Protein backbone atom coordinates (compact mmCIF):
# COMPACT_ATOMS: atom_id res chain seq x y z
CA UNK A 1 0.00 0.00 0.00
CA UNK A 2 3.03 2.31 0.44
CA UNK A 3 4.80 1.37 -2.83
CA UNK A 4 5.67 3.95 -5.57
CA UNK A 5 2.24 3.48 -7.18
CA UNK A 6 0.27 4.15 -3.98
CA UNK A 7 -1.99 7.22 -3.71
CA UNK A 8 0.41 8.84 -1.24
CA UNK A 9 3.32 8.64 -3.68
CA UNK A 10 1.16 9.86 -6.50
CA UNK A 11 0.26 12.95 -4.46
CA UNK A 12 3.90 13.52 -3.64
CA UNK A 13 4.87 13.16 -7.31
CA UNK A 14 2.15 15.57 -8.37
CA UNK A 15 3.33 18.13 -5.80
CA UNK A 16 6.92 17.83 -7.01
CA UNK A 17 5.78 18.25 -10.61
CA UNK A 18 3.88 21.39 -9.62
CA UNK A 19 6.95 22.76 -7.85
CA UNK A 20 9.01 22.25 -10.99
CA UNK A 21 6.28 23.88 -13.02
CA UNK A 22 6.21 26.88 -10.73
CA UNK A 23 9.96 27.38 -11.10
CA UNK A 24 9.51 27.50 -14.87
CA UNK A 25 6.28 29.48 -14.79
CA UNK A 26 7.59 33.04 -15.31
CA UNK A 27 9.50 31.99 -18.43
CA UNK A 28 6.64 29.99 -19.84
CA UNK A 29 4.16 32.77 -19.24
CA UNK A 30 6.34 35.28 -21.04
CA UNK A 31 6.61 32.88 -23.95
CA UNK A 32 2.92 32.09 -24.04
CA UNK A 33 2.15 35.81 -24.16
CA UNK A 34 4.69 36.20 -26.93
CA UNK A 35 3.16 33.47 -29.05
CA UNK A 36 0.14 35.45 -30.07
CA UNK A 37 0.17 37.93 -32.92
CA UNK A 38 -1.23 41.36 -32.08
CA UNK A 39 -4.09 42.60 -34.23
CA UNK A 40 -2.39 44.69 -36.92
CA UNK A 41 -4.42 44.91 -40.17
CA UNK A 42 -1.31 45.32 -42.36
CA UNK A 43 0.19 42.23 -40.74
CA UNK A 44 -2.98 40.17 -41.16
CA UNK A 45 -3.12 41.24 -44.81
CA UNK A 46 0.44 40.02 -45.34
CA UNK A 47 0.00 36.77 -43.43
CA UNK A 48 -3.23 36.22 -45.40
CA UNK A 49 -4.45 33.14 -43.55
CA UNK A 50 -1.09 31.33 -43.58
CA UNK A 51 0.00 29.91 -40.24
CA UNK A 52 3.35 31.38 -39.21
CA UNK A 53 5.80 29.33 -37.17
CA UNK A 54 7.36 30.40 -33.90
CA UNK A 55 10.77 29.94 -32.42
CA UNK A 56 13.16 30.48 -35.29
CA UNK A 57 13.04 34.28 -35.35
CA UNK A 58 14.40 36.30 -32.47
CA UNK A 59 13.33 39.92 -32.18
CA UNK A 60 15.38 41.81 -29.65
CA UNK A 61 14.07 45.12 -28.34
CA UNK A 62 14.51 46.55 -24.85
CA UNK A 63 11.58 45.74 -22.55
CA UNK A 64 11.68 49.34 -21.40
CA UNK A 65 12.58 52.11 -23.84
CA UNK A 66 13.23 55.47 -22.20
CA UNK A 67 13.06 57.31 -25.49
CA UNK A 68 10.77 56.12 -28.27
CA UNK A 69 12.66 58.26 -30.78
CA UNK A 70 15.44 55.77 -31.03
CA UNK A 71 15.10 52.21 -29.81
CA UNK A 72 17.77 49.62 -30.67
CA UNK A 73 16.33 46.67 -32.57
CA UNK A 74 17.91 43.40 -33.63
CA UNK A 75 16.26 40.59 -35.52
CA UNK A 76 17.88 37.22 -36.11
CA UNK A 77 16.62 34.21 -38.04
CA UNK A 78 18.28 31.04 -36.82
CA UNK A 79 19.95 28.89 -39.46
CA UNK A 80 21.29 26.72 -40.91
CA UNK A 81 19.43 27.32 -44.15
CA UNK A 82 21.28 25.59 -47.01
CA UNK A 83 20.29 23.36 -48.73
CA UNK A 84 16.75 24.11 -47.52
CA UNK A 85 14.77 27.30 -48.06
CA UNK A 86 16.53 30.58 -47.31
CA UNK A 87 15.20 33.86 -45.92
CA UNK A 88 13.88 36.17 -48.63
CA UNK A 89 12.75 39.06 -46.45
CA UNK A 90 12.11 40.20 -42.91
CA UNK A 91 9.22 42.57 -42.29
CA UNK A 92 8.72 44.62 -39.15
CA UNK A 93 5.24 45.60 -37.99
CA UNK A 94 4.25 48.01 -35.26
CA UNK A 95 1.05 47.74 -33.25
CA UNK A 96 0.71 51.43 -32.34
CA UNK A 97 2.78 53.55 -34.75
CA UNK A 98 0.90 55.69 -37.30
CA UNK A 99 2.73 53.69 -39.99
CA UNK A 100 2.34 50.00 -39.09
CA UNK A 101 4.83 48.71 -41.69
CA UNK A 102 8.07 49.89 -40.15
CA UNK A 103 10.57 48.29 -42.49
CA UNK A 104 11.20 45.50 -44.96
CA UNK A 105 14.66 43.98 -45.24
CA UNK A 106 15.31 41.90 -48.33
CA UNK A 107 17.97 39.29 -49.06
CA UNK A 108 18.17 38.69 -52.82
CA UNK A 109 20.80 35.91 -52.42
CA UNK A 110 20.76 32.91 -50.07
CA UNK A 111 22.60 33.89 -46.91
CA UNK A 112 23.76 31.75 -44.00
CA UNK A 113 23.74 34.52 -41.41
CA UNK A 114 20.49 36.42 -41.33
CA UNK A 115 20.69 39.19 -38.81
CA UNK A 116 19.68 42.84 -39.09
CA UNK A 117 20.21 45.56 -36.57
CA UNK A 118 18.77 49.08 -36.66
CA UNK A 119 17.10 51.68 -34.49
CA UNK A 120 13.36 52.17 -34.57
CA UNK A 121 10.85 54.80 -33.49
CA UNK A 122 7.99 53.74 -31.25
CA UNK A 123 5.00 56.02 -30.75
CA UNK A 124 3.97 54.41 -27.46
CA UNK A 125 4.14 51.18 -25.49
CA UNK A 126 3.27 48.38 -27.83
CA UNK A 127 4.12 45.05 -29.39
CA UNK A 128 6.36 44.78 -32.43
CA UNK A 129 6.27 41.83 -34.82
CA UNK A 130 9.04 40.48 -37.06
CA UNK A 131 8.00 38.19 -39.92
CA UNK A 132 10.59 36.25 -41.90
CA UNK A 133 9.39 35.10 -45.31
CA UNK A 134 11.22 32.04 -46.60
CA UNK A 135 11.91 31.12 -50.22
CA UNK A 136 9.40 28.23 -49.96
CA UNK A 137 6.64 30.59 -48.78
CA UNK A 138 6.81 29.62 -45.09
CA UNK A 139 6.56 32.38 -42.51
CA UNK A 140 8.40 32.58 -39.21
CA UNK A 141 7.43 35.17 -36.60
CA UNK A 142 8.50 36.69 -33.31
CA UNK A 143 6.88 39.32 -31.10
CA UNK A 144 8.48 41.75 -28.66
CA UNK A 145 6.69 43.93 -26.14
CA UNK A 146 8.16 47.33 -25.37
CA UNK A 147 7.14 49.84 -22.72
CA UNK A 148 7.92 53.35 -23.96
CA UNK A 149 8.25 56.21 -21.49
CA UNK A 150 8.76 59.10 -23.94
CA UNK A 151 6.73 58.76 -27.14
CA UNK A 152 8.55 58.65 -30.45
CA UNK A 153 6.19 60.90 -32.41
CA UNK A 154 6.20 63.87 -30.07
CA UNK A 155 8.97 66.39 -30.03
CA UNK A 156 10.02 69.41 -28.08
CA UNK A 157 8.85 72.08 -30.58
Amino acid sequence: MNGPGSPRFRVRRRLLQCAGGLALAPRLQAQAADRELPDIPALSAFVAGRSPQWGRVRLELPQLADNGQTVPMRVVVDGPFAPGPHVRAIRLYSQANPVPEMAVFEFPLPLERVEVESRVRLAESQRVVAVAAMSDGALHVAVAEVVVTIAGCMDGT
Partner: protein
Amino acid sequence: MPDARVSVPATNRRGEPFEVRILIRHPMETGYRTDEFGKSIPRNVIRTFICRYNGEPVFSARLSSGIAANPYLRFFVTARESGQLTFEWIDDAGVRGEDRAAVVVV
Protein backbone atom coordinates in the same frame (compact mmCIF):
# COMPACT_ATOMS: atom_id res chain seq x y z
CA MET B 1 30.79 65.88 -42.80
CA PRO B 2 30.01 63.08 -45.24
CA ASP B 3 26.48 61.69 -45.51
CA ALA B 4 27.33 58.22 -44.31
CA ARG B 5 29.83 56.15 -42.41
CA VAL B 6 30.46 52.57 -43.49
CA SER B 7 32.34 49.86 -41.70
CA VAL B 8 33.35 46.45 -43.06
CA PRO B 9 36.03 44.05 -41.76
CA ALA B 10 39.56 44.60 -43.12
CA THR B 11 39.76 41.06 -44.48
CA ASN B 12 37.16 38.37 -45.06
CA ARG B 13 37.24 34.61 -45.56
CA ARG B 14 35.83 33.40 -48.86
CA GLY B 15 32.38 31.88 -48.51
CA GLU B 16 31.76 33.26 -45.04
CA PRO B 17 29.33 36.01 -44.07
CA PHE B 18 30.85 39.30 -42.95
CA GLU B 19 29.32 42.19 -41.04
CA VAL B 20 28.43 45.47 -42.77
CA ARG B 21 27.53 48.53 -40.73
CA ILE B 22 26.30 51.81 -42.14
CA LEU B 23 25.15 55.01 -40.47
CA ILE B 24 23.48 57.54 -42.75
CA ARG B 25 23.04 61.17 -41.78
CA HIS B 26 19.37 61.91 -42.44
CA PRO B 27 16.60 63.50 -40.32
CA MET B 28 14.01 60.78 -41.22
CA GLU B 29 11.38 63.51 -40.83
CA THR B 30 8.12 61.84 -39.86
CA GLY B 31 5.67 64.37 -41.28
CA TYR B 32 3.96 64.66 -37.87
CA ARG B 33 6.05 67.53 -36.56
CA THR B 34 5.42 71.24 -36.91
CA ASP B 35 7.89 74.08 -37.21
CA GLU B 36 8.02 77.14 -34.93
CA PHE B 37 5.17 78.78 -36.91
CA GLY B 38 2.90 75.78 -36.47
CA LYS B 39 3.28 74.75 -40.09
CA SER B 40 3.64 71.03 -40.55
CA ILE B 41 7.03 69.78 -41.70
CA PRO B 42 6.55 67.46 -44.69
CA ARG B 43 7.55 63.86 -44.35
CA ASN B 44 11.01 63.08 -45.64
CA VAL B 45 12.37 59.64 -44.91
CA ILE B 46 14.75 57.36 -46.77
CA ARG B 47 12.38 55.05 -48.65
CA THR B 48 14.80 52.62 -50.19
CA PHE B 49 18.30 51.52 -49.42
CA ILE B 50 20.25 49.02 -51.49
CA CYS B 51 23.64 47.41 -51.06
CA ARG B 52 25.38 45.89 -54.11
CA TYR B 53 28.43 43.65 -54.11
CA ASN B 54 30.41 44.02 -57.33
CA GLY B 55 27.22 45.32 -58.92
CA GLU B 56 24.90 42.56 -57.69
CA PRO B 57 22.20 43.42 -55.10
CA VAL B 58 22.89 41.59 -51.83
CA PHE B 59 20.72 43.48 -49.34
CA SER B 60 17.98 46.05 -49.57
CA ALA B 61 15.67 47.80 -47.15
CA ARG B 62 12.42 49.69 -47.46
CA LEU B 63 12.20 52.08 -44.57
CA SER B 64 9.50 54.31 -43.06
CA SER B 65 9.12 56.98 -40.42
CA GLY B 66 9.34 54.07 -37.97
CA ILE B 67 13.11 54.08 -38.38
CA ALA B 68 15.02 56.52 -36.16
CA ALA B 69 16.77 59.64 -37.46
CA ASN B 70 20.26 59.00 -38.82
CA PRO B 71 19.36 55.44 -39.77
CA TYR B 72 21.78 52.74 -38.73
CA LEU B 73 21.83 49.36 -40.41
CA ARG B 74 23.90 46.30 -39.63
CA PHE B 75 23.60 43.23 -41.80
CA PHE B 76 25.64 40.40 -43.30
CA VAL B 77 26.94 39.68 -46.77
CA THR B 78 28.66 36.49 -47.97
CA ALA B 79 32.29 37.07 -49.01
CA ARG B 80 32.86 35.86 -52.57
CA GLU B 81 35.75 37.77 -54.11
CA SER B 82 37.56 41.02 -53.45
CA GLY B 83 35.79 44.01 -54.85
CA GLN B 84 33.46 46.75 -53.81
CA LEU B 85 30.26 47.22 -51.87
CA THR B 86 28.19 50.13 -53.06
CA PHE B 87 25.36 51.65 -51.07
CA GLU B 88 22.62 53.77 -52.53
CA TRP B 89 19.54 55.33 -50.99
CA ILE B 90 16.82 57.78 -51.92
CA ASP B 91 14.50 59.86 -49.74
CA ASP B 92 10.99 61.30 -50.19
CA ALA B 93 12.46 64.53 -51.56
CA GLY B 94 14.14 62.50 -54.30
CA VAL B 95 17.60 63.18 -52.94
CA ARG B 96 19.98 60.30 -53.60
CA GLY B 97 22.92 59.37 -51.46
CA GLU B 98 25.65 56.86 -52.00
CA ASP B 99 28.75 55.44 -50.44
CA ARG B 100 31.13 52.58 -51.08
CA ALA B 101 33.52 50.29 -49.27
CA ALA B 102 36.31 48.00 -50.46
CA VAL B 103 35.99 44.30 -49.68
CA VAL B 104 39.14 42.21 -49.35
CA VAL B 105 38.65 38.44 -49.56
CA VAL B 106 41.55 36.16 -48.65
